[in-house]
């Protein structure tokens, strides 16, 4: 019954969504028994392991191979499969992400496992293994049973509290060889915004829409985001027009976010945009059109000119601190 959790790192730090996956696994282990084993790949800062113990791990395994610092899909999948067998796990838990998805899919085949993606809660074990997942881009849920012995759960963000009181877990360094054939797809480089809060991981998101009229007006969005320690997002036309980079595009065809607070500035609230934000806990809308559809999906709203409201809001938030 033991569980293996695959955690991801970003520049040596363990991602918040991965810590959430560890705590989810700890919750699962309370229901069905079995240890929570955690696997980290690549260079991870030594202090980071305390968080993993705190989040609920019983044992930690680390493969420090630097080639795994990058998200080489085949190599990560190979390493996880080997450790899954080594610890005698039957359930693999991981956070949903662009790497997590790609890796989990290959593992479903390698491990003969039933896989459920976008899991939003702990399973109901009263009649088999039934877990709720989000479908139709957050517009509905499906109670899904997994009928195989081995199981993979790709967990959506912000659905389970992150524990910090789990105690210490020993880190065992594994000396596994990941063969060359897993590196046939060569990562030749990357472009990454340095020092920015990752949008899918963010607890607060500030997004701007086409109503802001041009990229030169993004300063005020940046300042508001900074004051809230938020990641920046945008609507599809804004990234289509090249005002903002594609990885900031939120919605049905972009990033799906699940923050505690989503602030939408000058975005109309088209159904395809809403599909990417409907998992947010609170939504604030700033729009000068009182009939903008976004207000129907919002918790709080101001009908007003963004160029007037946003700087004032930044000031008011800074004044709180």
């Amino acid at each position, binding site marked *: 019954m033991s569980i293996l959790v695959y955690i991801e790192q970003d520049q040596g730090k363990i991602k918040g969504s991965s810590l959430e996956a560890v705590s989810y696994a700890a919750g699962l282990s309370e229901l069905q028994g079995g240890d929570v084993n955690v696997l980290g790949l690549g260079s991870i800062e030594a202090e980071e392991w305390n968080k993993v113990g705190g989040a609920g791990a019983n044992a930690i395994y680390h493969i420090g191979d630097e080639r795994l610092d990058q998200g080489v*899909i085949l190599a990560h999948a190979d390493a996880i499969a080997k450790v899954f067998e080594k610890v005698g796990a039957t359930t693999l838990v991981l956070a949903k992400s662009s790497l997590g998805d790609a890796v989990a*899919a290959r593992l479903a085949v390698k491990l003969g496992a039933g896989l459920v993606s976008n899991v939003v809660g702990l399973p109901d074990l009263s009649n088999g293994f039934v877990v709720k997942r989000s*479908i139709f881009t957050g517009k509905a*849920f499906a109670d899904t*049973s997994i009928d195989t012995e081995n199981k993979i759960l790709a967990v959506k963000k912000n659905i389970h509290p992150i524990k910090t009181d789990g105690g210490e877990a020993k880190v065992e360094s594994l000396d596994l060889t990941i063969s060359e054939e897993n590196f046939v*797809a060569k990562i030749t480089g990357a472009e990454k915004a340095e020092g920015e809060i*990752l949008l899918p991981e963010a607890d607060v998101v500030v997004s701007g829409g086409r109503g802001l009229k041009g990229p030169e007006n993004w300063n005020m969005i940046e300042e508001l985001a900074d004051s809230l320690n938020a990641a920046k997002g945008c609507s599809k036309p804004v990234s289509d027009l090249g005002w903002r980079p594609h990885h900031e595009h939120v919605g049905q065809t972009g990033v799906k976010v699940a923050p505690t607070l989503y602030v939408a500035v000058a975005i109309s609230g088209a159904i*395809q945009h809403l599909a990417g934000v409907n998992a947010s806990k*609170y939504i604030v809308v700033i729009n000068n059109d009182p009939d903008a559809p976004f207000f129907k999906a919002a918790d*709080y709203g101001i009908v007003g000119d963004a160029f007037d409201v946003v700087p004032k809001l930044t000031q008011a938030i800074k004044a709180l601190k």
Partner: protein
Amino acid sequence: MKILVCITHVPDTTSKIQFTDNNTQLDKKGVQFIIGPYDDYALARAVELKAETSGNITVLNVGEVETEPTLRKALAIGADEAVRINAAPKDAFFVAKQIANYAKDKAFDLILMGRESIDFNGGMVHGMVGELLGMPSMSPVMKLEIEGDKGKLSREIEGGKEFIEVDLPFIAGCQEPIAEWKIPNMRGIMSARTKPLSVIEPAEEAERTAVNSYEMPPAKGAVKLVDNVDQLVDLLKNDAKIL
């Protein structure tokens, strides 16, 4: 170059999602079905690559007879032939197994899919097919160039993108801005009628997961509108308790 494009037949992005039969079936009444938007990007890129390399495109769906108009639309956009594997697609692994079973002896140079379906949003079928066929799989892919027998692509990662070089054959799960969606023209629509659409019976394969029932999210309460930012900050602090 021989390209396989796998497409889903899904409710239009503006559809109101509802369920019937005691929340066990999708209510298809009034729902318009389309090619999944990500699959549409995959198809559009395939059509461009075909023009560059004088290739051939097969478009495939695992679905029941109702998906044929969607396959015809893909033919109108520029695929050369269509294949429908005649089964209700009820589980990602089942779908992947059918695709792999069809593709295994066809020597495709490239298999393009969408990053994810917009009904079940798994984002998993490409990786599963990759593992089943022993091919590399990459997703979400934002740019794809073919140079000789090599693919050069960029894959979105959180906060940016990475660049990958990989030999053909491989599988890519596509998303924008890989290509612009293509709208079928009159000639495409006419020729689609006579292009081959074959129906293949599925390989025997057990499903690993099953949906017991569906559920709608709880209704959202009414918005609280305020006149100024101080009131908003007050709500965030004292009502939502998040500042």
